[in-house]
């Protein structure tokens, strides 16, 4: 019966958040969270959102307005160094991966 009942009018499809994967060494800044949801934008804007929510985040991965050399940022599996760098666009629903080198063995 309920399946026949008209439901509420359809909403506009809500925008899918961007998921940022946080590597282990940065998790103390995110309260231990391994991923954080952000709004879409450029990589720079995503990092700004992270900084607003988790102060201190930005300076760990950026210096003088650029990504630090030991940090790689991937948008949807692609290295932003081979795209538009920190101005690379992160679209709705895409995954951002922050990848610092890990030495453990």
């Amino acid at each position, binding site marked *: 019966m309920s399946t026949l009942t008209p439901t509420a009018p359809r909403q506009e499809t809500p925008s899918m958040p961007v998921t940022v*994967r946080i*590597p*282990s*060494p*940065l998790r103390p800044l995110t309260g231990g969270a*391994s*991923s954080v949801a952000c709004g879409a934008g450029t990589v720079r804007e995503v990092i700004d959102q992270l900084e607003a929510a988790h102060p201190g985040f930005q*300076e*760990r991965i950026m*210096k003088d307005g650029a990504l*630090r*050399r*030991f*940090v*790689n940022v*991937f948008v949807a*599996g*692609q*290295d932003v*160094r*081979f795209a538009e760098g920190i101005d690379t666009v992160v679209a709705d629903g895409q*995954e951002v*991966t922050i*990848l*610092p*080198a*890990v*030495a*453990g*063995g």
Partner: protein
Amino acid sequence: MPPTYQDLLASARDEVPEIQVNDLAPLLEGPDAPLVVDVRETSEWDEGNIPGSVHVPRGFLESRIAGVARPGQPIVVSCAAGQRSLLAARTLREMGFTDVSSLAGGFTRWKQSGHPVRVPRTLSPAQRSRYSRHVLIPEVGEEGQLRLLDAKVLLIGAGGLGSPAAFYLAAAGVGTLGLVDDDVVDASNLQRQIIHATDRVGMLKGESAKVAIQALNPDVQVNVHPFRVTRDNVLDLLSEYDLIVDGADNFPTRYLLNDAALMTRTPLVHASILRFEGHASVFLPYEGPCYRCIFPEPPPPDLAPSCGEAGVLGVLCGVMGNIQANEAIKVLLGIGDPLAGRLMIYDALGMTFTELKVRRDPDCPACGPNAQLELRDYEAWCAGVGRHEHAGAAA
């Protein structure tokens, strides 16, 4: 009256030209060498055959010949004494192969006349049994298993990654394993370093691993290298091996190995681990990206804690070390798609695998076209980079 065996042979001899071993030998050296098709049974072939010949047992001749020969190609059929080959040659002529002859006297006369003999390497009966599940896989087979037995893999570290990697590579029959580790087994290693054992605490890790490997598979030669890799010994060390499995626990060693692997063009199978997270990739020198294409500089120490400082899930080591063993075997056998140009992140907590595309950096200081690659003081370089970045982070 139906024809006897002798009648069949005689009629085949009327149809099929015969070639003498002393006439065949120089032909095989020349540019228009005929294809020698050996139709004996496998056990006969295994004891020796004519170099360059192909083996098609008589019972499979009709069904398999198209896979090895073209109809107009000069073919010499051989067997043990030159009789089965006459009948086989006649069959080939009936199948439209026009230039077919039979080797008079067969392999027996070839060998007696002092011509070269190739004795194919085969697995022993014990090895056929031990590696039967590999031999059954078409991509491996007996030939692949023999290749693994000939292969020499250098494992950097007999620790979290090196333990499972060495164990599985030994089980797989990789014939020579080099274990580089200057450390001794500690009780705190045993939560993850499964190649060691409680009663070997205090033993050099390489020696302890050797005990376990020899108990598992006596086919494997274990070379224990009880020292650290340095720029003074790395090139000599790598020259003895076909592939490196990097399970080092520090950045200076990882950068040193990367640069030395480029210099010696040795494939390097990378993995690194921390807590619940592992990275893995395969660096094929000058074919795909190298470690420094991805990580031109190491992070400062506070961003790169060691497992000794931050901990690591024991099982994670097993997953990542076995990914390394898997990739090593693929590279050694030349099968599948190695994890080159890709970096895999395994998150054991979320149970997710994330694949990142990694590329050669045209400005790579190690493998780029303008790189001036030389082995440096990696300890000082990593410490210097670390201090610099750390100061920047604190500023």
